[in-house]
């Protein structure tokens, strides 16, 4: 259950720093999602976790498995590329849907377009 002991201490420190940095960024994003006032402010916060937090944690996984297996293990790059491509797509879909909903009910918080 425990991590292998034969990885050098400097490498372990680098892996730990990457893990803690990524987890901290993700938690800061979650606090931001909870604390901000309006929806359009809130939608920015979680992308901290799904961009840089994801990069740091996947980088620590790549370093750990490459060192402990003694060969380059980089299949986590697949997830990095996939999430980097899909996160903006899904967030743009959701925010445009929210904008359409706000406009449809005549909210005063969003700019309106003339129906012509």
């Amino acid at each position, binding site marked *: *259950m425990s*991590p292998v002991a034969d990885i050098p201490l400097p490498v372990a420190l680098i*892996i730990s720093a990457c893990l803690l940095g990524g987890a901290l960024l*993700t938690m800061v994003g*979650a606090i931001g999602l909870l604390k901000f006032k309006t*929806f359009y402010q809130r939608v920015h916060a979680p992308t901290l976790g799904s961009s840089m937090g994801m990069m740091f944690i996947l980088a620590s996984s790549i370093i750990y498995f490459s060192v402990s297996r003694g060969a380059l293990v980089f299949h986590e790059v697949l997830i990095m590329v996939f999430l980097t491509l899909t996160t903006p797509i899904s967030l743009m879909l*959701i925010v445009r849907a929210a904008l359409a909903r706000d406009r449809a009910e005549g909210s005063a918080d969003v700019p309106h377009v003339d129906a012509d």
Partner: protein
Amino acid sequence: MSALVLSVSISVAQLMLVTAMGLYLFRMIRGPRAQDRVVALDAFYVTGMLLMITLGVRTNSTLYFEATVVIALLGFATSVALGKFLMRGEVIE
């Protein structure tokens, strides 16, 4: 020594990720409107995926990688479907 450093930092990182998931869950339950809940769900699955990667590092096993890929794929499909539903009221027209 390095095993101790790794296990402590993995535990702390998992604690932070679980805290983040709890905050997302809170926003998902409370969230004043449907779009808040959908954004919280989108962030929730990404954080669960990161938690599974740290679990893979903790147990020194690459088996969790496949589960991670499945979570990423299904989560994107979920977000797109929910965004379409928010926009139109129907997923497939």
